[in-house]
């Protein structure tokens, strides 16, 4: 029983991390049809940048801010310098992001080496807390904070998309890009903002995820794949779908790891294949 509770908690908190990464990925895709396969690289780069800033300033929170802002700037630059020039060429954009991810991974290896980096979160955020008394269930406080922050950001994203002018424009753009442009909105600005937000979320996730786990080469592909599977399952372009997909994948991974460790990794992909077979556009996706 205790093991089951802990495992479900672990699944939920891992899902929180997956949601943070995948929400940015799905946002960018929804509006721009840009499958950003460098999203994982942004996650890792954000984590490294956040680590260095936290190391210099001694403040973990500044590290989190740096991870978000740094990647938001990188995302905006990518959109303005590269992707704007190939509007509507989905496949070419995707190939560019693959090229970027190859180069970024190698350059990050050059700068930060193969070492593992570990954040030092504020001490009041670390250590275990008691969840239940009978049976005694202790749980890492930090992971609870991770879960809470994912919920806050999820709600924030929902409010942004549904209650603000810019959000309305983004949603309008998701539904019909052409119409949005025709109605006199500066589409390029919306695109840049969205890309910056998506990339920033990846950087943010890099720091908070890197704190929960650790930062090392290879994490870029790992979180890219997690994002891919989450949005394929949840439905491309839907933030709610990303939340559902992340929950499914996070739970499957952790329950698999405990109750069937050998094939735990494979289950997530099985879920994906099953969803694709019955609902190709994903659980919350709109039919193509």
């Amino acid at each position, binding site marked *: 029983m205790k093991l089951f509770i802990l495992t479900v908690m672990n699944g939920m908190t891992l899902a929180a991390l997956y949601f943070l990464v995948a929400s940015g990925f799905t946002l960018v895709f929804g509006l721009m049809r840009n499958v950003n396969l460098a999203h994982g690289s942004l996650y890792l780069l954000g984590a490294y940048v956040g680590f260095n800033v936290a190391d210099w300033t001694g403040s973990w929170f500044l590290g989190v801010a740096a991870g978000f802002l740094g990647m938001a700037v990188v995302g905006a630059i990518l959109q303005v310098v590269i992707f704007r020039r190939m509007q509507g060429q989905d496949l070419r954009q995707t190939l560019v992001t693959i090229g970027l991810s190859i180069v970024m991974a190698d350059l990050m290896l050059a700068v930060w080496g193969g*070492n593992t980096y570990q954040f030092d979160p504020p001490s009041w955020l670390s250590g275990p807390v008691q969840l239940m008394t009978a049976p005694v269930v202790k749980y890492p406080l930090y992971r609870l904070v991770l879960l809470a922050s994912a919920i806050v950001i999820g709600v924030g994203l929902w409010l942004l998309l549904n209650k603000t002018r810019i959000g309305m424009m983004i949603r309008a753009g998701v539904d019909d890009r052409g119409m949005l442009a025709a109605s006199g909105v500066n589409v390029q600005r919306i695109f840049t903002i969205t890309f910056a937000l998506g990339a920033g979320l990846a950087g943010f996730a890099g720091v908070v995820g890197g704190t929960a786990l650790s930062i090392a080469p290879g994490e870029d592909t790992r979180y890219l794949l997690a994002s891919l599977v989450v949005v394929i399952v949840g439905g491309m372009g839907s933030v709610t779908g990303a939340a559902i997909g992340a929950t499914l994948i996070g739970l499957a991974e952790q329950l698999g790891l405990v109750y069937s460790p050998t094939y735990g990794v494979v289950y997530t992909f099985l879920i994906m294949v099953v969803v694709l077979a019955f609902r190709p556009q994903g659980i919350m996706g709109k039919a193509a």
Partner: protein
Amino acid sequence: MSNVTRRNLLAASVALTVGFSVSAAMAEDTIKVGALATLQGAFTVLGEDGMRGVKLALQQHNNMAGGKKIELVTGSSDASPDSAVNAARKLVEQDKVQILVGPLSGDEGLAVKNYAKTQPQVTFINGTSAAQDTTLRDPAPNFFRFTTDGAQWQAGLGEYAFATKGYKKVVTIAEDYSFPYTQVFGFMQGFCKSGGHVVNKFWVPIGNKDFSSIVASIPDDIDAIYVALGGADAVNFLNQYEQAGGDKPMVGGSITVDQTVLGSKGKQQDYIIGTPSAGPIADNWDNAAWTKFVADYKAAFPDGFPSPSLFAQGYYVSTLAMLTALDQVKGDLSGDQKAYRDALQNLKLDTPTGPVTLDKNRNGIAYNFLTEVAKGDDGHLYNKVVKVVENVNQTLGMPEAEFMAIGPVGRDNPSCP
């Protein structure tokens, strides 16, 4: 359309013709040696330290052996066996090396051993790869390993954990592939024989970073956790274990508390102090040859690790063996290197980590070091020597038949719940 095709192909063919006409003209008084390590990918840091070992040995020999000049050619893999074979093939068939030192990791070693069988004219000397079967089963006659395997690296640890540390019941946590199987095997040989029980073995899929559910599955009624994870995963596990309030002491595999982990940043540094582990080197072994080696390493490579890793040591020992045997045969590699290989086989090599000889499968018999993590005066963590286990052979002191009867290591072999 077809115009393009033709011209491109012709252009490509011209490029090729120019390329392969370059032939390796070899002077009589030089010997070409290849060194193969992981200079790409996530193991780059380790491969570079291995190369430092090669370079240090060559420097100390003035790049000469047996009166001949040694010409070093470097090869690089990304730790995948395919890339190791490709790199070895280039060194042997294109660069025409006569002796090859490498590779670094276990599966690479198995792959290169199989390749060695197809190149009988070249002598292969292992770098640091530590899979048992590289030499134990189906060995290649021209593949020599002066280092030891992953089970030998654990010699003495099981007994020490049981008798001195007083751990009776442990669980093991290790990655789900051959090298950790070998390490767990090496630990359990001593631990189970002493009367200890390994109540559960957690095999973590490679690449898994979230250990929280494994941490949750660790039973309360155990005395210690045996962790044979490497690099990122070890740091990760320790951090999560501590976050979850874990307080059982740890016993470490050979790569768990190596320089990579000791040098990583974070809070688990305090926790790992006192962790026993075993491996082919020990940072502060109080031995003149070793301290000289460390000093030479630091002087030669100011940008290296604070203390040479087992990769620097392993490649150093292998290169040293290569050079010493060359000295003995006066650089004579004629007759399909027969005399040279005999010299290697019968070598009694004095290394910074004690004397090394070879068994009949050309696998190293060497010292193994039992250590405990301690904090140095400069604040760096290091492995303090507790005991030196001398002349550890591949069968861990068992008669060969008995040892072979245990069978190949795996997820469930051995077992003592």
